[in-house]
């Protein structure tokens, strides 16, 4: 294939490369070889996403017509500032998680399942990329289910170390399927009154529709479905168990990217597809999204403070962080949406890094990482722990870390909209998050009562290098955040541009 052909087909390659390598990986019984396929798949997606991001930097956006069928008849992939940024973040994180998987995944699952596991891995990352790229409301549902089903398989693989993974996967399946079906019902209503499925076309036709009720009901179903996938409070209940019992590498990948795609879709639906009916979306933003986001922030943070299992603790913290992103979108100004995108990126590297570190602990301890099991690990695994700490400080949002930049722009957006009370709540919650992080830090350096538990193997670069890539990204984006902030601003301008 010529270079020109590759360039022209980049939007498809982001999705197709991982998806097509998935069956190849499934055929390979050797774990190492299957891992190479996974690296090629996620790496190819990352390169494509990187080139796409370069292409949209100039402010252009373009559409890719699958099968050369022009929209609104065919399915299009939309490449604009918003989707390119989201896809780049997700591709980068799934690539880093794949690097970590080489040592981590075979240790936690059955060796003969490794090929199929990497197959599901590639399907999940390709499906999530497709979710972001597609400009077709129904195609979105297909990608939603590709990514969800493969994620469920990956979560169930955790049964190799803890059988509760099966129940977590089952619950995710049921809740996720109900959510996805809600979305399809909504699409059905909207299709019934507009006769189109293309998002851009929908955005044009929805304001012309006379039957307001149908639009409202369809919108409600669609948003409810996406909220389930995004794990926004109170439909987050599948998330903590799913992240906690999945294999370490899977937890890291899912925590970093899975909900981000759904949050992006939420923004797309709210700010482009239904941009023509601002009174409907404003209602949802003001009375549903913002209160739920704040409730989620507090619920997640408080549950995290009282949680003892470290992976569950991080999962609860994810619920809170998803709340921040949802809140940022709920502000609905371009500054707010930009803050949301900034936090999508920052939270991906923060939580990805923390789960990678916990994966390192898990492989050293060979048991579930509870707080008491972590006693004194700071001295014995200093490299992993330092990386964990950097990500942790970023999570609370101390300056010089990426998390601070998120907080800075979120608070700025809140002040600009005079949402002072919400701002205070956000800051109080971020202070509460200090509580659970400090609890971990203290234990990491505490001396154990008796002898140290024996560790299985030393720290190896295969396990801590991916973590450190993310830790350095945290510091880098904390000191020189301009690229991410600019990209997020462009994304926000692009989405809000649809309203005006």
């Amino acid at each position: 294939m010529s270079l020109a052909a590759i360039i022209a087909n980049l939007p498809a390659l982001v999705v197709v490369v991982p998806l097509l390598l998935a069956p190849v990986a499934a055929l390979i019984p050797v774990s190492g070889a299957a891992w190479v396929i996974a690296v090629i798949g996620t790496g190819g997606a990352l390169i494509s996403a990187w080139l796409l991001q370069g292409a949209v930097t100039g402010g252009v956006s373009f559409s890719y017509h699958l099968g050369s069928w022009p929209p609104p008849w065919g399915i299009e992939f939309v490449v604009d500032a918003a989707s390119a940024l989201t896809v780049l973040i997700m591709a980068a994180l799934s690539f880093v998680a794949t690097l970590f998987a080489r040592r981590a995944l075979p240790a936690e699952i059955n060796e003969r399942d490794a090929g199929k596991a990497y197959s599901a891995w590639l399907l999940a990352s390709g499906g999530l990329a497709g979710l972001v790229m597609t400009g077709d409301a129904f195609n979105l549902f297909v990608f939603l289910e590709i990514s969800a089903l493969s994620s469920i398989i990956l979560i169930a693989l955790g049964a190799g170390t803890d059988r509760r993974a099966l129940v977590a996967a089952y619950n995710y399946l049921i809740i996720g399927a109900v959510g996805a079906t809600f979305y399809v019902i909504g699409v059905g209503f909207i299709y019934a009154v507009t006769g189109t499925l293309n998002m851009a076309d929908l955005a044009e036709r929805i304001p012309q529709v006379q039957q307001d009720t149908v639009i409202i009901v369809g919108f409600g179903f669609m948003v409810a479905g996406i909220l389930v996938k995004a794990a926004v409070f109170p439909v987050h209940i599948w998330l903590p168990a799913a992240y906690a019992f999945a294999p370490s590498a899977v937890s890291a990948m899912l925590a970093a990217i899975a909900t981000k795609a759904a949050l992006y879709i939420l923004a797309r639906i709210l700010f482009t597809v239904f941009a023509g009916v601002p009174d409907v979306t404003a209602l949802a933003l003001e009375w549903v999204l913002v209160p739920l986001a704040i409730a989620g922030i507090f619920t997640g943070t408080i549950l995290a403070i009282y949680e003892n299992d470290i992976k569950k603790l991080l999962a609860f913290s994810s619920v809170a962080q998803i709340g921040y992103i949802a809140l940022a979108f709920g502000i609905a100004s371009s500054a707010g949406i930009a803050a949301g995108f900034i936090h999508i990126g920052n939270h991906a590297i923060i939580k990805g890094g923390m789960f990678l570190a916990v994966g390192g602990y898990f492989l050293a301890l060979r048991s579930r990482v509870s707080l008491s099991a972590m006693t004194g690990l700071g001295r014995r695994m200093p490299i992993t722990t330092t990386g964990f700490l950097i990500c942790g400080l970023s999570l609370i949002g101390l300056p010089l870390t990426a998390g601070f930049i998120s907080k800075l722009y979120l608070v700025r957006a809140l002040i600009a909209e005079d949402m002072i009370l919400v701002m205070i709540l956000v800051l109080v919650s971020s202070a509460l998050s200090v509580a659970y992080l400090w609890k971990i830090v203290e234990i990491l350096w505490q001396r154990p009562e008796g002898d140290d538990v024996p560790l299985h193997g030393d720290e190896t670069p295969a396990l801590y290098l991916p973590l450190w890539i993310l830790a350095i990204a945290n510091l880098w984006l904390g000191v020189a955040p301009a690229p991410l902030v600019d990209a997020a601003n462009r994304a926000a301008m692009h989405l809000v541009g649809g309203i005006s």
Partner: protein
Amino acid sequence: MIDPVSIITDSWNYLIVICLMMGGLFIVISQNNLVKKLVGLAIFQTSVFLFYITVGKMAGGTAPILLDSADVAYSNPLPHVLILTAIVVGVATTALGLALVLRIHAAFGSIEDDEVLTIKAEAALPRVTRAASETDSEARS
């Protein structure tokens, strides 16, 4: 203003959709048995399939296969295509769900949600580790 009788006579297809949808969702929520939950999910999804198809059907319309005469009303083919995809997705979901139920049954010995939950609270270690710890305790006693 709205005549209840006309709702039943004119919109019976939608009423069926609603009944199936609510029934399915109710089963998903209320049942303890993991297989029954999946059955409920399948009913719920099927109601959506019916909904799409009934929306796509045009009164007096024929199957959307191109005919030579110009004044033929075709039913909308697109919903059928969408639902074909949705059915495939539904099959995959159900299959995966049932596979998980089998594994849960093998691991916990039960497919009742409440029983599985109580087992969860106990030792959830993998078989090898737990067997080892049990023999330990037996040796001690």
